[in-house]
């Protein structure tokens, strides 16, 4: 207070100075903001492979997606066999619960070309496609995964986002279709019935996964989900909107529809074959229906992200799981569609009933009417997802 000029209190001066400094700093740093693109290129983000010296592998997967010993749930027979055979120590983590959530978890590292500390991640088709598009995934060496080239199901070969079958390798596949609980409603055959039958009003759910729900609706309109136009998409979306507005559809769900369907709070829904088979084994009145207008075929795919340092070990593991005998062992536990040719013959030895189940080993007729959703570019994805989210209310 050396200056005599003092009607301004010290507090006022301090607040004023600090306030304007904060505002200036805020404005300045805002202007400097903006984000760099997350796009990576093969040349720009090179990953080292230490598999030669490090016998290690970090494998991130979804819960209940690996066979466990009936007596001791901490033992995973097929994985343990791989470890004994190769000496590669596998750290198996069940930390993927949702494609979007997992994307949020790793996007900062991958966008900056940093390691995620994971050598194999398992993600669904559309998310795999997005990550591949962003250049975040390493290409595998085709020579090191001969089983994949030999045994991958023909309908899963050369998918639009991985035409050489060496970036994303299906772990398990499944169908999205209709399901109903026979103890609370009568049989259901078509998507239109689901969306309009009066006795189901308020007792129907659909999947919040756009590709599955919209794929089925596109099919029910007679359009091809693997090749459609924007107008056809809008048509299908209007149909969905009508069902939402009329109160026919109660909500949109992830995996969480399963307990509600079992309890009968939901009479019928759009759901995934693997979940419904598991419910059927407890209550045979819960049934999965692949509508004649087409079911949606999806896969969860193994991928090696950038900067993962054990690509060689990952290739060994992928190759191992494409041996028909190993694939059968896994399929017997997880009940999804097995993407490995020849596993059905192996399954006969383990459990003939499962070998005959078309939802684990689909016949050609079922496969022929199952579609994979069209690959979308970034702009389309944002547009369609935005429109869809608007209809489902978020």
């Amino acid at each position: 207070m050396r200056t005599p000029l003092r009607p301004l209190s010290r507090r006022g001066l301090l607040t004023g100075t600090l306030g304007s400094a904060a505002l200036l700093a805020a404005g300045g740093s805002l202007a400097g903001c903006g984000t760099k693109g997350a796009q990576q290129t093969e040349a720009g983000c090179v990953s080292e492979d230490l598999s030669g010296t490090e016998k290690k592998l970090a494998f991130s997967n979804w819960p209940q997606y690996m066979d466990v010993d009936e007596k001791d749930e901490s033992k995973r027979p097929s994985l343990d066999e791989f470890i004994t055979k190769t000496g590669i120590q596998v750290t198996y983590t069940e930390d993927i619960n949702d494609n979007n959530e997992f994307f949020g978890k790793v996007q900062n590292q991958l966008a900056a070309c940093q390691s995620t500390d994971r050598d194999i991640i398992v993600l669904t088709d559309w998310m795999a496609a997005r990550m591949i598009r962003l250049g975040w995934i390493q290409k595998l060496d085709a020579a090191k995964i001969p089983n994949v080239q030999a045994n991958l199901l023909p309908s899963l070969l050369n998918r639009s986002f991985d035409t050489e079958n060496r970036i994303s390798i299906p772990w398990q596949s499944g169908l999205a279709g209709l399901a109903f609980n026979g103890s609370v409603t009568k049989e259901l055959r078509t998507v239109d019935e689901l969306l309009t039958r009066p006795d189901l009003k308020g007792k129907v759910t659909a999947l919040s996964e756009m590709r599955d729900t919209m794929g089925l609706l596109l099919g029910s309109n007679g359009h091809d989900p693997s090749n459609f136009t924007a107008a056809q998409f809008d048509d299908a979306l209007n149909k969905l909107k009508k069902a939402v507005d009329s109160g026919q559809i109660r909500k949109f769900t992830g995996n969480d529809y399963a307990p509600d369907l079992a309890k009968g709070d939901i009479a019928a829904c759009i759901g995934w074959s693997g979940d419904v088979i598991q419910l059927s084994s407890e209550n045979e009145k819960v049934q999965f229906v692949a509508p004649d207008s087409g079911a949606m075929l999806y896969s969860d795919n193994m991928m090696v992200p950038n900067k993962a340092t054990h690509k060689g070990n990952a290739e060994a593991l992928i190759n191992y799981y494409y041996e028909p005998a190993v694939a059968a062992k896994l399929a017997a536990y997880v009940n999804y569609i097995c993407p490995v040719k020849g596993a059905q013959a192996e399954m006969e030895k383990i459990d003939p009933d499962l070998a005959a189940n078309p939802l684990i080993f689909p016949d050609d007729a079922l496969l022929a009417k199952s579609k994979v959703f069209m690959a979308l570019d970034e702009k389309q994805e944002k547009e369609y997802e935005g429109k869809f989210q608007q209809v489902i209310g978020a």
Partner: protein
Amino acid sequence: MTLLAPSKPGQLPSPPRAARSGRHRLLPYLLLLPGAVWLLVFFGVPLLQLAAASLYDPSGSLSTGYAMTWAFGNYPDVVQAYWPQLLRSFGYAGLALVLALLLGYPLAYAIAQKAGRWKNLLLVCVVAPMFTSFLVRTLAWKTILSDNGALVGLLRDVHLLAPDGRLLATPFAVVLGLTYNFLPFLVLPLYASLERLDPRLLEAASDLYASGVQAFRRVTLPLSMPGLVAGTLLFFIPASGDYINAELLGTPNEYMIGNVIDSAFLVRLDYPQGAALSFLLMAAILAVVFGYLRRAGTEEVL
């Protein structure tokens, strides 16, 4: 600042003033430092980042990145697209608040004034549900309200609910979930201020011929005001931003603004929109809070 009146006779000689007052002046700031750094790093910087993101060019994308274009147009855009959810959030939170007050005030009063030796036990009962996860508690409501559950069956039998009526997946369930989940935040501060209420004041009021209602209105209520204001704020702020209750107990028609923000960040990857909505929610809540505080006139809370 170095010269002050010489010490009076008889007083102990004080240490040199300059050194002492200098240290004294710095000490509070030093004590504030860890908290301030924490606030700056985990609140200030993210807040700025969010503010920046809300002004990014909406035509940007993840792979190409977002440019800072001062796109204030993001705000009207999101209001136009999502005003129903925004209004719904405040509507539901307000409704839940009224319910919670009707339940919580008598409860807090009873615990503070009438519970005697059961006081601690009752307080534990209020807090106990917080020991389980928020999600688990909300999922439990899903079972309680289930279409084929006992509660709905009973209501149907006594014709309070149509034969095909339901509780789950209705606005009722969402408001109920909000009320239940945030009730302790209202009860605890209320309890704290009601506990300090001197019963002799009520006696005095009745000696002066105040009726029960009058005594409540003129004595109890004004004295519990700080707790009431703190409690309503602690209840209303998280309740209006909540999305779990709407997600689990509601349908798309009950979705609140939190659900939209969640989907903007995680599903649609529309960061400018998500950030603009977050900011809007914050601004709206601040406006409500300041308006409320001005009316309630309790400055002690802030």
